[in-house]
Every structure is written in structure tokens, then in C-alpha cells.
């Protein structure tokens, strides 16, 4: 199944849903979708294109919107599904039903960006320490942090 054949099949299967389909490099496809049909496209990819392996989920803070990229991988192709979420209503459907292994990446999104993922099986804090203030999300561009005061032992500050 060469790259071009996969792209043709994708165009037929998705039709209007595929807002943007780019093929920048060998074995790399970027596909943009509306958040609503994220779950349906994920099931389609898993069943029809043998992309059961979700490598990871990357969140990017683009100022006005959050862009979430799902990196799917199959033995022949690496497809990156891109979803835009507005900053005011950062809501995202969870795909744990389709791919159970995705739970940890979605929880990291919640911690790092403050995106709320609906019906996620387990939404406890993940990477941040226990005493982390609630509203802070480190990977947002507008989040600044002050360095903890260093005390040099032995009095020489």
C-alpha cells in the first residue's frame, strides 16, 4: 500500500470531513479534522487502516486556539490527526473507548494545557506534584514561573 494509494482511500472514505490533507514527506500524512468527528475517524483508522497503535498525543498552544495532534502509526504509514480547539471552550472528546492506551496522553493534556477531556475514564492529576495550585497549566505560553529561591548552604548566599 504505497503512500499515494492510502491518500486516495482516505479522500474517498472521509470526503468532507478531511479539512486538510498534506503529505510533506515519505510515510508522513497530516490530516485535519473537526473535534466532533474525532472518535469516528479514530475508529475508521483503527479498523480500516490497521492504525491501532497511537504513538502519542501532542498539544500545542497557538495563542487563540489549542492544536492537538494525534500520532497514529501502522507498519507502513505514520498519520498525524490534527484537531483545533478554541481557547475559551477547551473541550475534547476522549478516544479511550477506541484505543485504551490513549488514557495517559489525554491525562497529560489535562495537566499541561487545562483542556478538559470528556468521559475520560480516570482524570486524577498526573504529572504535576501533589501540592500544585489548581489553575496553573505549565505548558501554556502565557504561564510564567518564578524560580524557587536558591539558598546556598553554608551561609554564602
Amino acid at each position, binding site marked *: 500500500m504505497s503512500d499515494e494509494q492510502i491518500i486516495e482511500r482516505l479522500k474517498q472514505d472521509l470526503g468532507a470531513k478531511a479539512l486538510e490533507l498534506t503529505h510533506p514527506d515519505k510515510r508522513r500524512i497530516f490530516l485535519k479534522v473537526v473535534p466532533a468527528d474525532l472518535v469516528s475517524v479514530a475508529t475508521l483508522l483503527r479498523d480500516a487502516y490497521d492504525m491501532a497503535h497511537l504513538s502519542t498525543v501532542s498539544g500545542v498552544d497557538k495563542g487563540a486556539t489549542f492544536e492537538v495532534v494525534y500520532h497514529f502509526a501502522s507498519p507502513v504509514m505514520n498519520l498525524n490527526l490534527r484537531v483545533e480547539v478554541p481557547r475559551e471552550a477547551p473541550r475534547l472528546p476522549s478516544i479511550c473507548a477506541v484505543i485504551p492506551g*490513549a488514557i495517559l496522553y489525554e491525562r497529560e493534556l489535562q495537566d499541561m494545557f487545562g483542556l478538559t477531556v470528556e468521559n475520560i475514564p480516570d482524570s486524577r492529576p498526573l504529572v504535576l506534584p501533589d501540592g500544585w495550585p489548581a489553575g496553573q497549566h505549565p505548558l501554556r505560553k502565557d504561564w510564567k514561573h518564578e524560580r524557587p529561591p536558591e539558598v546556598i548552604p553554608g551561609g554564602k548566599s
Partner: protein
Amino acid sequence: MKFEIPIGPQHPALKEPISLRMTVEGEVIRDADIRLGYNHRGLEKLAEEKTWIQNIYLTERICGICSHSHTSCYVQGVEKLMELAPPRRGLYIRYLISELERVHSHLLWLGVAGHEAGFDSFFMYTWRDREVVMDLLEMISGNRVHYAMNAIGGVRRDLDDAQRQKILDGVAVLRKRTEYYFHIGANEPSFVGRLAGVGRLTKERAVALCAVGPTARASGVARDVRKDDPYAVYDEIDFELCTADTCDVLGRTVVRIKELMESYKIIEFIVRNLPAGEIAVRAPRKAKPNEAVSRYEAPRGENIHYIKSNGSDKPERLKVRAPTLANYPATVEMLRNGFIADIPLIFAAIDPCICCAERSVELIDARSGEERTVRMSDLRRLAAARRRASGLKGKAEWPF
């Protein structure tokens, strides 16, 4: 009657801070709950404040054992961003170092598995032979662990003929020793008895939970980035994909020893036909706005970097996902219904590199119950229950 035993942040079996809370009935584990975050260093936020060159040294220190794999994966992505074509000799040397690192990582893992199983002589032997690889790496790059060989656009040090001959001799010695370990690993009764049947992970669950690396390959899932998505040099080298279908720790041991033999073949191939020419090409300071996904087969599994640039000399976003993180859902799956004595073994089986996974963390559907985050700072003081569980008899009520 169930109670939780905490295997806390500081534990001889775990070289790194991770906290496991096992819901235990007698000696059988009913449920696992992994809480990390002890090792999270906020690396991705730091990466956005450093330039491309500084980030090489940052990604190198994500993990001590697979340091070269993180830098190679990062540098590959940046070269794709900047549309650079590193010379062939530079690529060959880069992937020679990565294969040597795979050998050093697998030998280390064999020793740790032996230590977890209580077979200290095996630990001492494998680590004594690991010194041979460490000497080779030190000869080439000057440092035993963080080699700092990678630069954007190639490699920083060249190989002369004397070094190539030493590598070939070293590999010959190692091949003989590895056959000896294969003989021990396969049929030393107490060692095999300890490993067989421990930490079962069926093939469907391995695929569903997106397990990677030897953990998946030991359950029959043929997934290796060097074969699926061959980067740079690997499409020219012929090597087989080693899998086993016993789905347990013994299978992972066998897969890793077979991979050692494959790595020796690859190293000899690279050293024998090393092309002449330059080893690096100059890289510009800034990268035009672009994005790249680079994948790499680290000793523990698939390593993926997603890099996004915005035209300045600092990356806009660097997303690192290390292989251990992908194996955590599989670990909880394996821990269920195991024995307490098997916890370190199962945990060592995925060869956890918690500092890799620690840029982010994992928790799988542990039984929620009342969310009392057990403050395990004093794990040795926590006497969960006075009375010991009534053993395996009695109806074990399933937590879900």
C-alpha cells in the same frame, strides 16, 4: 480482605522514584496503581527557552541509558525541519553509536533482571562484559554514558582505522559471551523457573494498550520502527525482527538476547562498509516555521519527537514521548493477578526508564474507591492492616 502495600519512591528494586500501590490479597496482586511525578522535571517548558543547539544537550539528559537515542531522534527531526542532508559517513557513525548503545542497554537489562530474580552472579557477569562496550564507547566519544556525539547535520567525531579494528574485536568477544548468556537464560532451571509465566500480556492486549519495543515483540507483535519506518541507514542493512510468542518475562529475555545478536551483525556491517567523506554539514541558526515528527527505535521501544518551529532560533514546541511511558498501561495489565514476589521482575521486564517517562506520567483504571492519596513518604511506617489477609481462599470479589 484486601490491603494496599506501597512500593514507594525509594525502593531497592527500583533504581528510580516511582510509587506503586498494590491492592493485595495474600500474595496475589488484585490491582495496581502507579503514581509517578517524582521525576517530572518540566523538560518541555525548558526546551522552549533554549536554542536548537542547547536543546541537544537537554534531550541527551532525559535518560542516562538511552541518551543517544533521544538526541538522534531530536536531531533527525531538526534536520527534517531545516531540510538538511547529513553526509552518509556522519549517518553511519551516528547509527553505529546507537547500536552500541542498544548492546550496552540490553546487557544492563539482563543484569538487572538477574538481580531482581536474585541471581546475582548473572548480574555480575553481564555487567562485567558490559564494561567492554563501555570501553568502546569511551574510546569513540570520550565519555561512558552521555556521548554528545550528535550535532545538527551530522556527528562531531570521526572514526579512524585503529578504532574500527578495536570495535570488531570487542564485538567478537561480546558475541561469544552473549551465546553463553543465551545458554544460561534459556535453560538454567531456577532462573527459567523464576521467569516463565510471570507477567502475562496477551497479543490483543499488547496491541490495544499500544505496548512498544521488546515488551510488545515478546507477545508476538512484530512492531519495530527500524523495519516499519526505516530512517537513514536502516533500509540498507539486513537484519531480522526478533519476536517471541510466550508473552511473559522469559519471552522478553529471549527477545532482548536475540536483539543483541542482531545488533552485533549491524555493528559489523556498519564498521566494514563505512563510506568515506565528510562527517557533518553546517546548520543554520534559525529554522523557518515548519513541523516534523521523528521516530526512532530506542532499546526499550519506539521513541517519538514532535518538533514545531516558528522561525526563531528556539523551538516553539518539543514533544518527547519515551518508550517506557507507552509500556505503563501494559505493566498494570501484567501486574494484575501476579505475586508480590513478581512485582520487581514484572517491573524490570519492561526495562523502565522512569526518567524518560517522567516528562509525563501514567495511571490506568485503578479501582477508584475513596481517593485517599496515601502519603507514602513514610512507606516503611505504613502498616496497612494488623491482620494478614486470609490467604487465597474465599470468594475474591472483583473490584470493578
